[in-house]
Protein backbone atom coordinates (compact mmCIF):
# COMPACT_ATOMS: atom_id res chain seq x y z
CA UNK A 1 0.00 0.00 0.00
CA UNK A 2 1.39 3.43 -0.89
CA UNK A 3 1.42 6.05 1.83
CA UNK A 4 -2.05 7.46 2.37
CA UNK A 5 -2.33 11.14 1.52
CA UNK A 6 -5.21 11.90 3.81
CA UNK A 7 -6.32 10.51 7.17
CA UNK A 8 -9.97 11.04 8.25
CA UNK A 9 -10.54 11.32 12.02
CA UNK A 10 -13.64 10.37 13.97
CA UNK A 11 -15.03 12.67 16.68
CA UNK A 12 -14.02 10.65 19.75
CA UNK A 13 -10.45 10.24 18.56
CA UNK A 14 -10.18 13.91 17.73
CA UNK A 15 -11.50 14.91 21.14
CA UNK A 16 -8.86 12.75 22.83
CA UNK A 17 -6.19 14.43 20.72
CA UNK A 18 -7.46 17.90 21.62
CA UNK A 19 -7.69 16.97 25.30
CA UNK A 20 -4.02 16.02 25.19
CA UNK A 21 -2.91 18.95 23.04
CA UNK A 22 -0.78 20.34 25.89
CA UNK A 23 0.99 17.02 26.42
CA UNK A 24 1.50 16.49 22.68
CA UNK A 25 2.89 19.99 22.11
CA UNK A 26 -0.08 21.28 20.19
CA UNK A 27 -0.94 18.18 18.21
CA UNK A 28 2.61 17.42 17.15
CA UNK A 29 1.69 13.87 16.02
CA UNK A 30 -0.77 15.35 13.50
CA UNK A 31 1.64 18.01 12.31
CA UNK A 32 4.35 15.38 11.92
CA UNK A 33 2.06 13.26 9.76
CA UNK A 34 1.21 16.24 7.59
CA UNK A 35 4.59 17.97 7.35
CA UNK A 36 7.00 15.04 7.32
CA UNK A 37 4.97 12.21 5.82
CA UNK A 38 2.56 14.11 3.58
CA UNK A 39 -0.48 12.61 5.29
CA UNK A 40 -3.14 15.29 5.80
CA UNK A 41 -5.34 14.79 8.90
CA UNK A 42 -8.95 15.55 7.94
CA UNK A 43 -12.50 15.43 9.17
CA UNK A 44 -15.85 15.11 7.44
CA UNK A 45 -18.51 17.80 7.94
CA UNK A 46 -20.48 15.54 10.30
CA UNK A 47 -17.51 15.31 12.66
CA UNK A 48 -17.15 19.08 12.64
CA UNK A 49 -20.78 19.40 13.78
CA UNK A 50 -20.42 16.66 16.39
CA UNK A 51 -17.33 18.28 17.79
CA UNK A 52 -18.96 21.70 18.06
CA UNK A 53 -22.07 20.12 19.60
CA UNK A 54 -20.24 17.90 22.09
CA UNK A 55 -21.81 18.63 25.47
CA UNK A 56 -18.89 17.66 27.62
CA UNK A 57 -15.91 18.90 25.65
CA UNK A 58 -17.28 21.01 22.77
CA UNK A 59 -16.48 24.35 24.39
CA UNK A 60 -13.18 23.16 25.84
CA UNK A 61 -11.71 21.90 22.59
CA UNK A 62 -13.14 24.68 20.41
CA UNK A 63 -10.07 27.02 20.52
CA UNK A 64 -7.65 24.21 19.69
CA UNK A 65 -9.99 23.00 16.95
CA UNK A 66 -10.24 26.44 15.35
CA UNK A 67 -6.46 26.75 15.52
CA UNK A 68 -5.96 23.34 13.88
CA UNK A 69 -8.34 24.24 11.05
CA UNK A 70 -6.79 27.68 10.70
CA UNK A 71 -3.20 26.48 10.39
CA UNK A 72 -4.10 23.53 8.19
CA UNK A 73 -3.24 20.82 10.69
CA UNK A 74 -6.77 19.61 10.00
CA UNK A 75 -8.88 20.10 6.92
CA UNK A 76 -12.56 19.58 6.19
CA UNK A 77 -12.99 16.81 3.67
CA UNK A 78 -15.47 18.47 1.30
CA UNK A 79 -15.61 18.32 -2.51
CA UNK A 80 -12.86 20.91 -2.77
CA UNK A 81 -10.52 19.00 -0.48
CA UNK A 82 -11.42 15.73 -2.15
CA UNK A 83 -10.06 17.04 -5.45
CA UNK A 84 -6.58 17.05 -3.90
CA UNK A 85 -6.71 13.29 -3.46
CA UNK A 86 -8.41 12.18 -6.67
CA UNK A 87 -8.27 13.61 -10.18
CA UNK A 88 -10.29 16.82 -10.01
CA UNK A 89 -12.65 15.65 -12.75
CA UNK A 90 -13.64 12.74 -10.52
CA UNK A 91 -13.89 14.66 -7.24
CA UNK A 92 -17.61 15.33 -7.46
CA UNK A 93 -18.43 11.71 -8.23
CA UNK A 94 -16.10 10.37 -5.54
CA UNK A 95 -17.63 12.74 -3.00
CA UNK A 96 -21.13 11.61 -3.99
CA UNK A 97 -20.07 7.97 -3.62
CA UNK A 98 -18.66 8.71 -0.19
CA UNK A 99 -21.88 10.46 0.86
CA UNK A 100 -24.01 7.62 -0.41
CA UNK A 101 -21.91 5.10 1.50
CA UNK A 102 -22.06 7.34 4.57
CA UNK A 103 -25.87 7.32 4.40
CA UNK A 104 -25.86 3.53 4.53
CA UNK A 105 -23.26 3.37 7.29
CA UNK A 106 -25.19 5.95 9.32
CA UNK A 107 -28.00 3.47 9.88
CA UNK A 108 -25.54 1.29 11.77
CA UNK A 109 -22.98 3.59 13.37
CA UNK A 110 -23.01 7.18 14.62
CA UNK A 111 -23.14 10.01 12.05
CA UNK A 112 -19.54 11.10 12.50
CA UNK A 113 -18.08 7.61 12.39
CA UNK A 114 -20.32 6.65 9.45
CA UNK A 115 -19.18 9.45 7.17
CA UNK A 116 -15.57 9.16 8.40
CA UNK A 117 -15.34 5.47 7.57
CA UNK A 118 -17.21 6.02 4.30
CA UNK A 119 -14.72 8.68 3.23
CA UNK A 120 -11.77 6.48 4.19
CA UNK A 121 -13.18 3.46 2.32
CA UNK A 122 -13.98 5.55 -0.75
CA UNK A 123 -10.49 7.05 -0.84
CA UNK A 124 -8.90 3.73 0.18
CA UNK A 125 -7.04 5.27 3.11
CA UNK A 126 -6.93 4.41 6.84
CA UNK A 127 -9.15 6.21 9.35
CA UNK A 128 -8.69 7.14 13.01
CA UNK A 129 -11.34 5.96 15.48
CA UNK A 130 -11.30 4.32 18.88
CA UNK A 131 -14.70 2.66 18.62
CA UNK A 132 -14.34 -0.98 17.65
CA UNK A 133 -18.09 -1.53 18.07
CA UNK A 134 -18.60 0.53 14.90
CA UNK A 135 -16.21 -1.70 12.96
CA UNK A 136 -17.84 -4.87 14.25
CA UNK A 137 -21.31 -3.56 13.42
CA UNK A 138 -20.31 -2.52 9.90
CA UNK A 139 -18.64 -5.89 9.42
CA UNK A 140 -21.78 -7.65 10.73
CA UNK A 141 -23.74 -6.05 7.90
CA UNK A 142 -21.09 -6.97 5.34
CA UNK A 143 -19.87 -3.42 4.84
CA UNK A 144 -16.27 -2.63 4.03
CA UNK A 145 -14.28 -0.89 6.75
CA UNK A 146 -11.06 1.11 6.37
CA UNK A 147 -7.79 -0.71 6.66
CA UNK A 148 -6.30 -0.08 9.06
CA UNK A 149 -8.31 1.91 11.58
CA UNK A 150 -5.86 3.71 13.81
CA UNK A 151 -6.43 4.45 17.47
CA UNK A 152 -5.22 7.59 19.21
CA UNK A 153 -2.56 5.49 20.97
CA UNK A 154 -1.26 4.38 17.57
CA UNK A 155 -0.52 8.04 16.88
CA UNK A 156 1.20 8.43 20.25
CA UNK A 157 3.29 5.32 19.55
CA UNK A 158 4.09 6.62 16.07
CA UNK A 159 5.13 9.99 17.52
CA UNK A 160 7.34 8.17 20.02
CA UNK A 161 8.93 6.06 17.29
CA UNK A 162 9.60 9.05 15.05
CA UNK A 163 10.94 11.13 17.93
CA UNK A 164 8.22 13.76 17.65
CA UNK A 165 7.26 13.05 21.28
CA UNK A 166 9.25 11.49 24.08
CA UNK A 167 8.11 8.90 26.58
CA UNK A 168 7.24 11.55 29.16
CA UNK A 169 4.95 13.35 26.70
CA UNK A 170 3.18 10.12 25.79
CA UNK A 171 2.76 9.11 29.41
CA UNK A 172 1.46 12.56 30.32
CA UNK A 173 -1.10 12.24 27.54
CA UNK A 174 -2.07 8.79 28.83
CA UNK A 175 -2.51 10.16 32.35
CA UNK A 176 -4.54 13.09 31.09
CA UNK A 177 -6.99 10.77 29.34
CA UNK A 178 -7.17 8.40 32.30
CA UNK A 179 -7.82 11.34 34.62
CA UNK A 180 -10.77 12.33 32.45
CA UNK A 181 -12.20 8.80 32.48
CA UNK A 182 -11.63 8.49 28.75
CA UNK A 183 -11.45 5.00 27.29
CA UNK A 184 -7.90 3.92 26.53
CA UNK A 185 -6.51 0.57 25.33
CA UNK A 186 -6.17 -2.04 28.07
CA UNK A 187 -2.38 -2.17 27.65
CA UNK A 188 -2.12 1.37 29.01
CA UNK A 189 -4.82 1.33 31.65
CA UNK A 190 -2.58 0.18 34.50
CA UNK A 191 0.86 0.63 33.00
CA UNK A 192 3.08 3.59 32.19
CA UNK A 193 3.29 4.32 28.46
CA UNK A 194 6.66 2.61 28.02
CA UNK A 195 5.45 -0.50 29.85
CA UNK A 196 2.17 -0.53 27.95
CA UNK A 197 4.08 -0.59 24.67
CA UNK A 198 5.35 -4.06 25.63
CA UNK A 199 1.90 -5.47 24.96
CA UNK A 200 0.62 -2.97 22.37
CA UNK A 201 0.84 -3.45 18.62
CA UNK A 202 0.93 -0.10 16.81
CA UNK A 203 -0.92 0.01 13.49
CA UNK A 204 1.24 2.71 11.91
CA UNK A 205 5.00 2.80 11.93
CA UNK A 206 7.77 4.65 10.13
CA UNK A 207 9.23 1.95 7.88
CA UNK A 208 12.70 3.44 8.15
CA UNK A 209 12.99 3.45 11.92
CA UNK A 210 13.36 0.83 14.62
CA UNK A 211 10.10 -0.94 15.37
CA UNK A 212 8.25 -0.14 18.62
CA UNK A 213 5.62 -2.26 20.31
CA UNK A 214 4.88 -5.91 19.67
CA UNK A 215 4.64 -7.78 16.39
CA UNK A 216 1.28 -7.78 14.63
CA UNK A 217 -0.82 -10.93 14.80
CA UNK A 218 -3.29 -12.05 12.14
CA UNK A 219 -6.60 -10.28 12.54
CA UNK A 220 -9.28 -8.34 10.71
CA UNK A 221 -8.29 -5.74 8.14
CA UNK A 222 -8.80 -2.82 10.48
CA UNK A 223 -5.99 -4.21 12.68
CA UNK A 224 -3.44 -4.26 9.86
CA UNK A 225 -0.11 -2.58 10.52
CA UNK A 226 1.07 -0.14 7.85
CA UNK A 227 4.46 1.42 7.33
CA UNK A 228 4.91 4.96 6.07
CA UNK A 229 7.99 6.80 4.91
CA UNK A 230 9.08 10.39 5.17
CA UNK A 231 8.56 12.48 2.05
Amino acid at each position, binding site marked *: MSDPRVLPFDTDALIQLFLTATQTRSLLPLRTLRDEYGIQPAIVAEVEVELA*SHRKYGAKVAPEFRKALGNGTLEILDIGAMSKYVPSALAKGVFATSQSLGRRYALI*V*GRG*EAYTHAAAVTLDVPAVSNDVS*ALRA*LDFHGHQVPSPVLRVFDLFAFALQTGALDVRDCDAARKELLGRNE*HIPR*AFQHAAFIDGMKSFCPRILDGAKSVVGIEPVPGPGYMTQIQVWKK
Partner: protein
Amino acid sequence: MLNAILEATGVDAQTCARLLGISPTVFGEWTAEQRNIPESYALLLADVLGVDPAVIRMSSKQAHRAGDLTPAIWYKFRGDELIDADRECVLLIRQLGHYQSEIEEVTGKKAVGWRPLFEAIRQGTDAQAAPSEQGRRAARMFRESTGLSQCATGIGEVFRGNLRRLGVLVIESPIPGSRVEGCCFYVGAHPMERPCVFANLYQSTWFRRNVVLLHEVAHAIFDAPSVAATLDFLESNGTADVSEQRAQSFALEALLPKEVLHNLAQSRGIKWDRMSPTEMAYLVADTHVEQRAVARAAVAAGFVPPEQEAALRSLDISGTLRSISERALTTAEYVGSQAPEVKQRQMLGKRTTTIPSRTIRLPIPYVRNVIEALRDQVISRGRAAELLMIDDHELDSRFRELVSASVDE
Protein backbone atom coordinates in the same frame (compact mmCIF):
# COMPACT_ATOMS: atom_id res chain seq x y z
CA MET B 1 -34.86 28.10 3.54
CA LEU B 2 -34.40 26.32 6.84
CA ASN B 3 -35.05 29.58 8.62
CA ALA B 4 -38.34 30.13 6.80
CA ILE B 5 -39.51 26.61 7.60
CA LEU B 6 -38.57 27.02 11.25
CA GLU B 7 -40.54 30.25 11.45
CA ALA B 8 -43.58 28.37 10.20
CA THR B 9 -43.16 25.70 12.87
CA GLY B 10 -43.20 28.19 15.72
CA VAL B 11 -39.96 26.70 17.10
CA ASP B 12 -37.06 29.15 16.90
CA ALA B 13 -33.67 28.14 15.55
CA GLN B 14 -31.89 28.17 18.90
CA THR B 15 -34.53 25.96 20.50
CA CYS B 16 -34.54 23.60 17.54
CA ALA B 17 -30.74 23.32 17.76
CA ARG B 18 -30.86 22.53 21.46
CA LEU B 19 -33.66 20.00 21.02
CA LEU B 20 -31.69 18.14 18.38
CA GLY B 21 -28.42 18.37 20.31
CA ILE B 22 -26.74 20.51 17.66
CA SER B 23 -24.50 23.45 18.55
CA PRO B 24 -26.68 26.60 18.37
CA THR B 25 -23.75 28.41 16.74
CA VAL B 26 -23.47 25.86 13.95
CA PHE B 27 -27.25 25.74 13.58
CA GLY B 28 -27.33 29.54 13.37
CA GLU B 29 -24.83 29.39 10.53
CA TRP B 30 -27.08 26.93 8.73
CA THR B 31 -30.16 29.10 9.08
CA ALA B 32 -28.18 32.17 8.02
CA GLU B 33 -27.00 30.16 5.00
CA GLN B 34 -23.39 30.87 5.93
CA ARG B 35 -22.55 27.19 5.90
CA ASN B 36 -23.86 24.11 4.07
CA ILE B 37 -25.91 21.65 6.06
CA PRO B 38 -24.17 18.26 6.01
CA GLU B 39 -26.22 15.62 4.29
CA SER B 40 -26.99 13.48 7.32
CA TYR B 41 -28.30 16.49 9.24
CA ALA B 42 -30.35 17.62 6.25
CA LEU B 43 -32.01 14.18 6.22
CA LEU B 44 -32.77 14.38 9.94
CA LEU B 45 -34.13 17.92 9.72
CA ALA B 46 -36.25 17.00 6.72
CA ASP B 47 -37.88 14.15 8.61
CA VAL B 48 -38.34 16.11 11.81
CA LEU B 49 -39.80 19.16 10.10
CA GLY B 50 -41.69 17.15 7.49
CA VAL B 51 -40.22 18.51 4.26
CA ASP B 52 -38.12 17.15 1.44
CA PRO B 53 -34.35 17.11 2.19
CA ALA B 54 -33.73 19.17 -0.94
CA VAL B 55 -35.93 21.92 0.47
CA ILE B 56 -33.87 22.04 3.67
CA ARG B 57 -30.70 22.69 1.69
CA MET B 58 -32.34 25.15 -0.71
CA SER B 59 -31.22 28.74 -0.40
CA SER B 60 -33.82 31.41 0.29
CA LYS B 61 -33.03 32.91 -3.12
CA GLN B 62 -34.13 29.67 -4.81
CA ALA B 63 -37.48 29.55 -3.08
CA HIS B 64 -39.95 32.39 -2.89
CA ARG B 65 -42.88 30.73 -1.23
CA ALA B 66 -41.76 29.23 2.06
CA GLY B 67 -45.37 29.06 3.17
CA ASP B 68 -46.17 26.65 0.36
CA LEU B 69 -43.50 24.27 1.59
CA THR B 70 -44.47 24.32 5.24
CA PRO B 71 -45.96 20.97 6.27
CA ALA B 72 -49.55 21.13 7.43
CA ILE B 73 -48.74 19.65 10.82
CA TRP B 74 -47.01 22.82 11.92
CA TYR B 75 -50.06 24.93 11.11
CA LYS B 76 -51.95 22.71 13.54
CA PHE B 77 -49.40 23.24 16.28
CA ARG B 78 -49.40 27.03 16.12
CA GLY B 79 -52.77 27.44 17.85
CA ASP B 80 -53.22 29.70 20.87
CA GLU B 81 -54.04 26.79 23.14
CA LEU B 82 -50.57 25.37 22.63
CA ILE B 83 -47.44 26.28 24.50
CA ASP B 84 -43.82 26.10 23.38
CA ALA B 85 -43.41 22.81 25.23
CA ASP B 86 -46.06 21.21 23.03
CA ARG B 87 -44.33 22.16 19.81
CA GLU B 88 -40.97 21.15 21.19
CA CYS B 89 -42.35 17.80 22.25
CA VAL B 90 -43.81 17.22 18.78
CA LEU B 91 -40.43 17.97 17.25
CA LEU B 92 -38.76 15.44 19.54
CA ILE B 93 -41.39 12.81 18.85
CA ARG B 94 -40.86 13.30 15.14
CA GLN B 95 -37.14 12.78 15.73
CA LEU B 96 -37.97 9.59 17.60
CA GLY B 97 -40.14 8.52 14.65
CA HIS B 98 -37.16 9.05 12.35
CA TYR B 99 -34.95 6.93 14.62
CA GLN B 100 -37.60 4.24 15.06
CA SER B 101 -37.78 3.76 11.30
CA GLU B 102 -34.00 3.55 11.12
CA ILE B 103 -33.61 0.97 13.91
CA GLU B 104 -36.38 -1.14 12.36
CA GLU B 105 -34.64 -0.96 9.00
CA VAL B 106 -31.30 -2.04 10.41
CA THR B 107 -32.74 -4.85 12.55
CA GLY B 108 -35.09 -6.03 9.82
CA LYS B 109 -38.14 -5.56 12.04
CA LYS B 110 -40.07 -3.14 9.90
CA ALA B 111 -43.70 -3.16 11.02
CA VAL B 112 -46.26 -1.84 8.56
CA GLY B 113 -49.32 -3.84 9.61
CA TRP B 114 -51.11 -0.63 10.56
CA ARG B 115 -51.45 0.36 6.93
CA PRO B 116 -53.71 -2.49 5.65
CA LEU B 117 -55.58 -2.62 8.95
CA PHE B 118 -56.39 1.09 8.97
CA GLU B 119 -57.36 0.93 5.32
CA ALA B 120 -59.66 -2.06 5.95
CA ILE B 121 -61.29 -0.26 8.87
CA ARG B 122 -61.87 2.87 6.80
CA GLN B 123 -63.33 0.81 3.97
CA GLY B 124 -65.52 -1.16 6.35
CA THR B 125 -66.96 1.93 7.97
CA ASP B 126 -70.07 3.53 6.57
CA ALA B 127 -69.28 7.23 6.31
CA GLN B 128 -73.03 7.96 6.18
CA ALA B 129 -73.65 6.35 9.57
CA ALA B 130 -73.86 8.30 12.82
CA PRO B 131 -70.36 9.15 14.14
CA SER B 132 -70.82 7.08 17.29
CA GLU B 133 -71.87 4.08 15.20
CA GLN B 134 -68.87 4.57 12.92
CA GLY B 135 -66.62 4.54 15.98
CA ARG B 136 -68.23 1.42 17.47
CA ARG B 137 -68.02 -0.48 14.20
CA ALA B 138 -64.41 0.55 13.65
CA ALA B 139 -63.53 -0.49 17.21
CA ARG B 140 -65.07 -3.92 16.74
CA MET B 141 -63.03 -4.41 13.57
CA PHE B 142 -59.95 -3.19 15.39
CA ARG B 143 -60.49 -5.63 18.27
CA GLU B 144 -61.16 -8.55 15.93
CA SER B 145 -58.17 -7.85 13.65
CA THR B 146 -55.72 -7.49 16.51
CA GLY B 147 -56.89 -10.46 18.55
CA LEU B 148 -58.19 -8.19 21.29
CA SER B 149 -61.73 -9.48 20.91
CA GLN B 150 -60.59 -12.68 22.65
CA CYS B 151 -60.05 -10.66 25.84
CA ALA B 152 -62.84 -11.16 28.35
CA THR B 153 -61.35 -8.49 30.56
CA GLY B 154 -59.59 -5.14 30.16
CA ILE B 155 -57.09 -4.71 27.33
CA GLY B 156 -55.03 -1.94 28.93
CA GLU B 157 -52.07 -4.24 29.52
CA VAL B 158 -51.88 -5.51 25.96
CA PHE B 159 -53.12 -2.98 23.42
CA ARG B 160 -49.93 -0.88 23.43
CA GLY B 161 -47.94 -3.95 22.41
CA ASN B 162 -50.49 -4.74 19.70
CA LEU B 163 -50.26 -1.22 18.32
CA ARG B 164 -46.46 -1.28 18.34
CA ARG B 165 -46.40 -4.61 16.56
CA LEU B 166 -48.51 -3.00 13.86
CA GLY B 167 -45.91 -0.24 13.57
CA VAL B 168 -47.77 2.50 15.40
CA LEU B 169 -45.50 4.73 17.46
CA VAL B 170 -47.01 4.93 20.96
CA ILE B 171 -45.53 7.62 23.19
CA GLU B 172 -46.46 8.50 26.75
CA SER B 173 -44.35 11.26 28.19
CA PRO B 174 -45.00 14.19 30.52
CA ILE B 175 -45.35 17.75 29.21
CA PRO B 176 -45.74 19.80 32.41
CA GLY B 177 -47.92 22.86 32.02
CA SER B 178 -49.39 21.68 28.74
CA ARG B 179 -53.13 21.48 28.12
CA VAL B 180 -52.62 18.83 25.46
CA GLU B 181 -53.96 15.52 26.71
CA GLY B 182 -53.35 13.56 23.56
CA CYS B 183 -52.50 14.05 19.95
CA CYS B 184 -51.94 12.10 16.78
CA PHE B 185 -49.89 12.76 13.68
CA TYR B 186 -47.79 10.91 11.15
CA VAL B 187 -44.01 10.77 11.44
CA GLY B 188 -41.30 9.78 8.97
CA ALA B 189 -40.67 10.54 5.35
CA HIS B 190 -43.27 9.64 2.74
CA PRO B 191 -43.92 6.85 1.75
CA MET B 192 -42.50 5.28 4.92
CA GLU B 193 -44.52 7.40 7.32
CA ARG B 194 -46.21 5.82 10.33
CA PRO B 195 -48.91 6.97 12.74
CA CYS B 196 -47.88 8.24 16.13
CA VAL B 197 -50.28 8.46 19.06
CA PHE B 198 -49.23 10.47 22.07
CA ALA B 199 -50.64 10.77 25.59
CA ASN B 200 -49.46 13.37 28.06
CA LEU B 201 -48.37 11.66 31.28
CA TYR B 202 -48.49 14.84 33.29
CA GLN B 203 -51.15 14.62 36.02
CA SER B 204 -52.76 11.71 34.23
CA THR B 205 -53.59 8.16 35.28
CA TRP B 206 -52.87 4.96 33.41
CA PHE B 207 -56.64 4.29 33.29
CA ARG B 208 -57.25 7.67 31.67
CA ARG B 209 -54.38 7.28 29.23
CA ASN B 210 -55.82 4.01 27.94
CA VAL B 211 -58.87 5.98 26.82
CA VAL B 212 -56.76 8.83 25.46
CA LEU B 213 -54.49 6.55 23.43
CA LEU B 214 -57.32 4.64 21.79
CA HIS B 215 -59.13 7.91 21.13
CA GLU B 216 -55.99 8.99 19.26
CA VAL B 217 -55.87 5.69 17.39
CA ALA B 218 -59.31 6.51 15.99
CA HIS B 219 -57.96 9.85 14.86
CA ALA B 220 -54.97 8.06 13.32
CA ILE B 221 -57.33 5.85 11.32
CA PHE B 222 -59.84 8.44 10.18
CA ASP B 223 -58.56 11.97 10.57
CA ALA B 224 -54.78 12.45 10.80
CA PRO B 225 -54.04 11.30 7.23
CA SER B 226 -56.08 14.19 5.87
CA VAL B 227 -55.68 16.90 8.50
CA ALA B 228 -51.99 16.28 9.33
CA ALA B 229 -52.52 16.20 13.08
CA THR B 230 -55.26 16.02 15.67
CA LEU B 231 -55.11 17.52 19.11
CA ASP B 232 -57.15 16.82 22.21
CA PHE B 233 -57.06 19.12 25.19
CA LEU B 234 -57.72 18.52 28.87
CA GLU B 235 -61.32 19.03 29.92
CA SER B 236 -62.51 19.79 26.44
CA ASN B 237 -65.86 18.42 25.41
CA GLY B 238 -65.45 18.37 21.67
CA THR B 239 -68.41 16.04 21.29
CA ALA B 240 -70.14 18.27 18.72
CA ASP B 241 -67.48 17.42 16.21
CA VAL B 242 -68.00 14.31 14.07
CA SER B 243 -64.42 13.15 14.38
CA GLU B 244 -64.43 13.64 18.16
CA GLN B 245 -67.69 11.75 18.59
CA ARG B 246 -66.36 8.93 16.44
CA ALA B 247 -63.05 8.81 18.33
CA GLN B 248 -64.77 8.84 21.70
CA SER B 249 -67.07 6.05 20.68
CA PHE B 250 -64.14 4.08 19.21
CA ALA B 251 -62.12 4.32 22.42
CA LEU B 252 -65.03 3.24 24.61
CA GLU B 253 -65.99 0.32 22.40
CA ALA B 254 -62.39 -0.81 21.93
CA LEU B 255 -61.71 -0.78 25.65
CA LEU B 256 -65.07 -1.69 27.05
CA PRO B 257 -67.52 -3.50 24.79
CA LYS B 258 -70.91 -4.16 26.32
CA GLU B 259 -70.33 -7.89 26.76
CA VAL B 260 -67.03 -7.39 28.60
CA LEU B 261 -68.58 -4.86 30.96
CA HIS B 262 -71.54 -7.15 31.53
CA ASN B 263 -69.36 -10.20 32.25
CA LEU B 264 -67.05 -8.35 34.61
CA ALA B 265 -69.93 -6.83 36.54
CA GLN B 266 -71.64 -10.20 36.75
CA SER B 267 -68.50 -11.98 37.95
CA ARG B 268 -68.24 -9.47 40.81
CA GLY B 269 -71.96 -9.74 41.59
CA ILE B 270 -72.40 -6.04 40.95
CA LYS B 271 -75.91 -4.56 40.99
CA TRP B 272 -75.79 -1.48 38.76
CA ASP B 273 -78.52 0.38 40.59
CA ARG B 274 -76.77 0.22 43.97
CA MET B 275 -73.10 0.12 43.17
CA SER B 276 -70.69 0.76 46.03
CA PRO B 277 -67.38 2.68 45.71
CA THR B 278 -65.49 -0.60 46.24
CA GLU B 279 -67.39 -2.29 43.42
CA MET B 280 -66.69 0.62 41.11
CA ALA B 281 -63.00 0.45 42.07
CA TYR B 282 -62.96 -3.24 41.08
CA LEU B 283 -64.67 -2.46 37.80
CA VAL B 284 -62.07 0.19 37.00
CA ALA B 285 -59.25 -2.18 38.00
CA ASP B 286 -60.68 -5.03 35.90
CA THR B 287 -61.58 -2.98 32.83
CA HIS B 288 -58.40 -0.86 32.86
CA VAL B 289 -60.57 2.14 32.14
CA GLU B 290 -61.08 5.33 34.15
CA GLN B 291 -64.20 5.69 36.29
CA ARG B 292 -66.01 8.25 34.14
CA ALA B 293 -65.57 6.06 31.04
CA VAL B 294 -66.97 3.06 32.93
CA ALA B 295 -69.97 5.16 33.92
CA ARG B 296 -70.42 6.34 30.34
CA ALA B 297 -70.12 2.80 28.99
CA ALA B 298 -72.68 1.57 31.51
CA VAL B 299 -75.14 4.19 30.28
CA ALA B 300 -74.37 3.47 26.62
CA ALA B 301 -74.91 -0.25 27.23
CA GLY B 302 -78.22 0.44 28.90
CA PHE B 303 -77.16 -0.96 32.31
CA VAL B 304 -77.99 2.31 34.07
CA PRO B 305 -80.23 5.22 33.09
CA PRO B 306 -78.46 8.41 31.92
CA GLU B 307 -79.48 10.28 35.07
CA GLN B 308 -77.44 7.84 37.18
CA GLU B 309 -74.17 8.45 35.33
CA ALA B 310 -73.19 11.41 37.49
CA ALA B 311 -73.67 9.36 40.66
CA LEU B 312 -71.43 6.59 39.33
CA ARG B 313 -68.78 9.13 38.36
CA SER B 314 -68.77 10.70 41.81
CA LEU B 315 -68.15 7.53 43.81
CA ASP B 316 -64.89 7.92 45.75
CA ILE B 317 -62.70 5.03 44.67
CA SER B 318 -59.17 6.44 44.96
CA GLY B 319 -58.09 4.71 48.18
CA THR B 320 -59.54 1.33 47.26
CA LEU B 321 -58.18 1.48 43.72
CA ARG B 322 -54.62 2.02 44.93
CA SER B 323 -54.93 -0.98 47.21
CA ILE B 324 -56.26 -3.35 44.55
CA SER B 325 -54.49 -2.20 41.38
CA GLU B 326 -50.79 -1.44 41.04
CA ARG B 327 -51.75 0.52 37.92
CA ALA B 328 -53.21 3.17 40.22
CA LEU B 329 -49.66 3.88 41.41
CA THR B 330 -47.54 6.51 39.74
CA THR B 331 -45.39 5.25 36.86
CA ALA B 332 -42.27 5.30 39.04
CA GLU B 333 -44.08 3.53 41.90
CA TYR B 334 -45.47 0.96 39.49
CA VAL B 335 -42.21 0.16 37.75
CA GLY B 336 -40.42 0.12 41.12
CA SER B 337 -42.95 -2.39 42.44
CA GLN B 338 -42.11 -4.91 39.71
CA ALA B 339 -39.76 -7.84 40.36
CA PRO B 340 -36.11 -7.19 39.43
CA GLU B 341 -36.27 -9.60 36.50
CA VAL B 342 -39.23 -7.79 34.95
CA LYS B 343 -38.06 -5.93 31.87
CA GLN B 344 -39.93 -2.76 32.79
CA ARG B 345 -38.08 -2.66 36.13
CA GLN B 346 -34.75 -3.12 34.34
CA MET B 347 -35.51 -0.02 32.29
CA LEU B 348 -36.20 2.15 35.34
CA GLY B 349 -34.33 5.44 34.93
CA LYS B 350 -32.90 4.38 31.58
CA ARG B 351 -35.49 5.76 29.21
CA THR B 352 -35.14 9.49 29.66
CA THR B 353 -33.29 11.44 26.99
CA THR B 354 -30.49 13.79 28.02
CA ILE B 355 -29.23 15.32 24.77
CA PRO B 356 -32.33 17.35 23.85
CA SER B 357 -32.95 20.45 25.96
CA ARG B 358 -36.42 19.07 26.70
CA THR B 359 -36.54 15.48 27.88
CA ILE B 360 -38.92 12.81 26.71
CA ARG B 361 -39.38 9.31 28.05
CA LEU B 362 -38.74 6.76 25.33
CA PRO B 363 -41.00 3.71 24.97
CA ILE B 364 -39.62 0.59 26.68
CA PRO B 365 -39.77 -1.61 23.54
CA TYR B 366 -37.83 1.01 21.59
CA VAL B 367 -35.07 1.22 24.21
CA ARG B 368 -34.97 -2.58 24.38
CA ASN B 369 -34.62 -2.84 20.59
CA VAL B 370 -31.71 -0.41 20.58
CA ILE B 371 -29.95 -2.15 23.45
CA GLU B 372 -30.44 -5.58 21.93
CA ALA B 373 -29.04 -4.29 18.64
CA LEU B 374 -26.01 -2.94 20.49
CA ARG B 375 -25.55 -6.18 22.43
CA ASP B 376 -25.75 -8.20 19.20
CA GLN B 377 -23.23 -5.85 17.54
CA VAL B 378 -25.79 -4.87 14.93
CA ILE B 379 -25.21 -1.18 15.72
CA SER B 380 -22.29 0.65 17.29
CA ARG B 381 -22.05 2.25 20.69
CA GLY B 382 -22.14 5.72 19.16
CA ARG B 383 -25.23 4.85 17.17
CA ALA B 384 -27.00 3.43 20.23
CA ALA B 385 -26.31 6.66 22.10
CA GLU B 386 -27.62 8.67 19.15
CA LEU B 387 -30.83 6.61 18.97
CA LEU B 388 -31.41 6.91 22.71
CA MET B 389 -30.69 10.66 22.54
CA ILE B 390 -28.05 10.43 25.25
CA ASP B 391 -24.29 10.90 25.11
CA ASP B 392 -21.69 8.12 25.09
CA HIS B 393 -20.85 8.58 28.75
CA GLU B 394 -24.51 8.30 29.75
CA LEU B 395 -24.79 5.15 27.64
CA ASP B 396 -21.81 3.71 29.48
CA SER B 397 -23.28 4.43 32.88
CA ARG B 398 -26.77 3.15 32.04
CA PHE B 399 -25.76 0.01 30.17
CA ARG B 400 -22.23 -0.60 31.44
CA GLU B 401 -22.31 -4.37 30.97
CA LEU B 402 -23.01 -4.00 27.24
CA VAL B 403 -20.52 -1.35 26.26
CA SER B 404 -17.37 -2.50 28.03
CA ALA B 405 -15.99 -4.09 24.86
CA SER B 406 -16.44 -1.06 22.61
CA VAL B 407 -12.87 0.24 22.88
CA ASP B 408 -10.48 -0.99 20.23
CA GLU B 409 -7.77 -2.84 22.12
